[in-house]
């Protein structure tokens, strides 16, 4: 990444952070319903990997913590927010909600709410790419706890067996809801688990985007060049609770503070300041501009959009 790239990515990451924080507020205001899983703390994971890949060209699939992955693939934040508001202008016309953002035009193939469900779907998309001879790859972002599902193992086996162009990104934030990894999983280093299937794997820091990018580049090149699947484990942390009803009683404030010292946005910001590419004033201005954009464009769009027409309740069930 050039310094210009990094500056652009910093702007995106600030948008990603502020977007999610604004969702939090909208949820408190009861504008957003259901389950809401937020991404702050993990921004370098999605951004680092997708900078090494080709957003909008490569196929991306993930779980329920999906707003930012969609936006990174090219979704309009307005349309994502409208979906969270359940509006007719939302990405799924109000039928999906926070956990089911889709944007087929930008090859964001969805958010799925069954833990582990996307593993075989990602491998299947890779099978389609392989048959159709394209240069895309399939990228699956999931959490650490998803790896305890049977389909994780089934999929690793098939992906390697059939040499499928699929990159599995494990965003290891150390918890599945309120259960820490060492309490749910016998082998805590997730990348080691796929060795049994012969899948190439690596583990790295998920907070410094330069580190994520370097490792993701190796992973993406491996997959795109036809060498088969790759599993990349990124060590990260989510700042907020698992979803909105989580008061985080299972972890200490010291642990949280420790991770916040390695905030992905601050790390990148400070590097750009040190390189003379950015000033603190500029950064603060960026935050203010981002908030203003979210308020006047994103929220305004969601607020002013119409509700779905109840007479269309049964649309989109069958073709």
């Amino acid at each position, binding site marked *: 990444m050039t310094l210009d790239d990094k500056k652009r990515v910093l702007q995106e990451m600030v948008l990603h952070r502020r977007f999610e924080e604004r969702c939090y507020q909208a949820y408190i205001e009861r504008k957003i319903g259901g389950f809401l899983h937020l991404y702050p703390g993990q921004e370098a994971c999605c951004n680092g990997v997708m900078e090494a890949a080709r957003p909008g060209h490569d*196929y991306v699939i993930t779980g329920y913590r999906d707003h930012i992955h969609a936006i990174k693939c090219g979704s309009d934040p307005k349309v994502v927010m409208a979906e969270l508001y359940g509006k007719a202008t939302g990405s799924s016309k109000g039928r999906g909600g926070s956990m089911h953002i889709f944007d087929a035009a930008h090859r964001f193939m*969805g958010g799925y709410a069954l833990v582990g469900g996307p593993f075989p779907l990602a*491998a299947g998309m890779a099978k*389609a790419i392989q048959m159709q001879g394209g240069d895309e790859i399939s990228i699956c972002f999931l959490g650490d706890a998803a790896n305890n599902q049977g389909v994780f193992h089934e*999929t690793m*086996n*098939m992906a390697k067996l*059939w040499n499928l162009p699929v990159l599995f990104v494990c965003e290891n934030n150390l918890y599945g809801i309120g259960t820490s990894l060492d309490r749910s999983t016998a082998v805590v280093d997730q990348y080691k688990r796929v060795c049994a299937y012969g899948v190439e794997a690596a583990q790295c820091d998920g907070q410094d985007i330069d580190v994520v990018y370097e490792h993701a580049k190796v992973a993406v090149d491996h997959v795109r060049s036809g060498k088969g699947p790759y599993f990349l484990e990124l060590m990260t942390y989510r700042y907020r609770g698992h979803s909105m009803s989580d008061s985080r009683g299972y972890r200490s404030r010291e642990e949280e503070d420790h991770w916040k010292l390695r905030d992905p946005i601050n790390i990148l910001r400070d590097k750009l300041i040190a390189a003379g590419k950015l000033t603190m004033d500029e950064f603060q201005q960026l935050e203010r501009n981002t908030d203003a954009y979210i308020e006047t464009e994103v929220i305004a769009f969601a607020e002013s959009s119409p509700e779905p027409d109840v007479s269309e309740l049964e649309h989109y069930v069958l073709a």
Partner: protein
Amino acid sequence: MAEIMYWEALLRAQDEEMARDPMVICMGEDIGVAGGTYKATKGLFEKYGEKRVMDTPISEGGFTGLGIGASFLGVRPVIEIMSVNFAWLAMDQMFNSAAKVRYMSGGQLSAPCVFRSAGGAAHQLGAQHSARMEKVFMGIAGLRVVTPSNPKQAYGLLKSAIRSNDPVFINEHELMYNMKGEVPDSEYLHPLEGSEIARTGSDVTLFGYNISVHWCLKAAEILQTQHGISAEVIDLYCLSPLDRAGIRKSVSKTHRAVIAEEDEAPVGVGSEIIAIINEECFFELDAAPVRVHSAFVPQPYNHTLEAAAIPDHDDVIRAVLKLFGKA
């Protein structure tokens, strides 16, 4: 019209569709080199190669999900689940991914895949290899369910299912793969919705699907010759969405209904048809509809117990005679 077996009809459909469209693939356990448990993919491996006729590991959830993911990008997989009892392991992907993706994406994505499976009870296979599960599949929005009762339907429904933009579950039967029947020599696409009048009659309607159509036909013949009762037989080859208009039309004509299913009650085709009759044509009825179904037990192994658990044409005849106050 040539007479071919049910499995040959399935094979012909897959072969023709694979030849027509390079995006059609077959997946499943032992379907390739081994030719398929019921021979429905015999010879396809040699013809189309391992990339399109995929012998999968024994990972029903995994390979079903993989096929569904491929279908998002335009591949049309025909996914064979060796026995419907194993489909439980694949249902998360069938229901949560394939059946819901169109809706939860607001129409952006679809899962045009086919799930084929051997359902029904064969002889003495015991509780874990003899379950019927159509009741489960037909209750899922976003999934089509068809169940061919003869080779012509097997051929035509499978071809239509492959071309459908919806996920389709095809419920086959362990005991029917060697059944013979006429299949048109030229290409034939069977409609995925509707029902067929397998025999016309005027006194009572017998509803069947898949194997129970044959109980109904046999019962109708005996009812006619021995009891002077004219039974109409409706073949419900499509279990989702059910043909409400066809059900109404026949019951409005005969004013009596018996539903025969191999699945056990409670919950199932029988209860659903009776609900539809209530909703569509209750005041046409001359008698309360009756369902004939399996006993509510896991399938027993012992031959006599098994025979007692599963109905046949005699049970259908008894139900009809009772309706007419003759038993």
